[in-house]
């Protein structure tokens, strides 16, 4: 990430200056605090709210209920993850993602990787196989109902904001499958090289 971050910034600055966008760049840089503030406030308050809601759901047994429903899927995808707590968090994260509740997914996702890190007996700076699989699934976006997209279309007066719904569902499922296959291939190659 160090490399990616430095390269993005360095490249962008040089590119922007060469193409004569100095004023835009300086505007953008000066606006970083404001932009961060807006993002952080929305994100933290939303995640705190959902984290609170999730705690109540945990207490009344909804979390266990959902986790049990999705469990078989994870037995297939992450056969080595047996820890009850981690599986619960993973399930909650995926369930929230499915319904397009990105902000609700973040707290349980963070707890899931935290738990996986506690279980990690090897190098703590290196991702475990379970973390990689879980996050690849997250980057593929398991969103079956893209709530925010539909809200934008509904807000602009769409006749039927969900008319395209089947396409993102197909695309996201293919994206997940592709991610999981790529993950499995890279993992196998990684172990073949190291053992």
């Amino acid at each position, binding site marked *: 990430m160090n490399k990616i971050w430095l390269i993005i910034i360095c490249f962008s600055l040089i590119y922007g200056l060469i193409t004569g966008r100095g004023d835009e760049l300086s505007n953008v840089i000066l606006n970083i605090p404001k932009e961060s503030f807006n993002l952080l406030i929305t994100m933290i308050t939303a995640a705190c709210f959902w984290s609170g809601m999730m705690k109540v759901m945990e207490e009344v047994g909804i979390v266990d209920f959902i986790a049990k429903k999705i469990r078989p899927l994870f037995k297939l995808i992450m056969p080595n993850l047996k820890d009850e707590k981690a599986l619960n968090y993973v399930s909650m994260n995926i369930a929230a993602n499915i319904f397009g509740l990105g902000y609700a997914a973040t707290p349980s996702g963070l707890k899931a990787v935290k738990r996986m890190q506690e279980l990690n007996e090897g190098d703590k700076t290196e991702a475990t196989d379970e973390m990689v699989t879980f996050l690849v699934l997250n980057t593929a976006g398991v969103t079956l109902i893209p709530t925010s997209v539909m809200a934008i279309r509904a807000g602009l007066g769409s006749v039927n904001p969900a008319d395209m719904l089947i396409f993102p569902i197909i695309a996201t499922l293919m994206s997940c499958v592709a991610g999981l296959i790529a993950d499995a291939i*890279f993992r196998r190659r990684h172990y073949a090289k190291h053992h």
Partner: protein
Amino acid sequence: MLSTISFIIVPILVLVTIILAIKKKVKGYDKFLLGVQDGMSLFKEVFPTLIAMVTAVAILRGSGFISDVGELLKEALDVNGEAVELVPMILFRPISGSASMSIFNSICLNHGPDSFLCRTGATIQGSTDTTLYVLSLYFSSIGVTKWKHSLKAGLIADFVGISIGVILSIIFFGF
């Protein structure tokens, strides 16, 4: 039908939670506060990552690089002039959710919410998630610096999801 379900799912979820809390005599309010506190402490750890991400993405956007690539592709592909508006949105998708969402918003605003571009954009938005953001947020929260192959696999997933989204839109909505 599906849109109705997805719009009422949140209130229903909250309602079921509250009813169960009353039925099972759970101290809902106390638990809620506890959960919020949990959320706060989780975010204390990812705060620096978020600022770093905002910085990189803002500068990248300000440099105009991505819109220039869009222009180049427009000339190279010689496609229907409007469709190229989707290119910056696609390029931003794995890097910044809010940047690509705001492009999507303006596309729908300019062309109407039921236009080909807005529908295709919606399909692309829903087909994948912000890979770079997800990975840096989660990994930094637990101090993992070696990501292994997760970035490669994530980007492959993005590519497949977006391609299939575009292909499906072209087949079923047409230009």
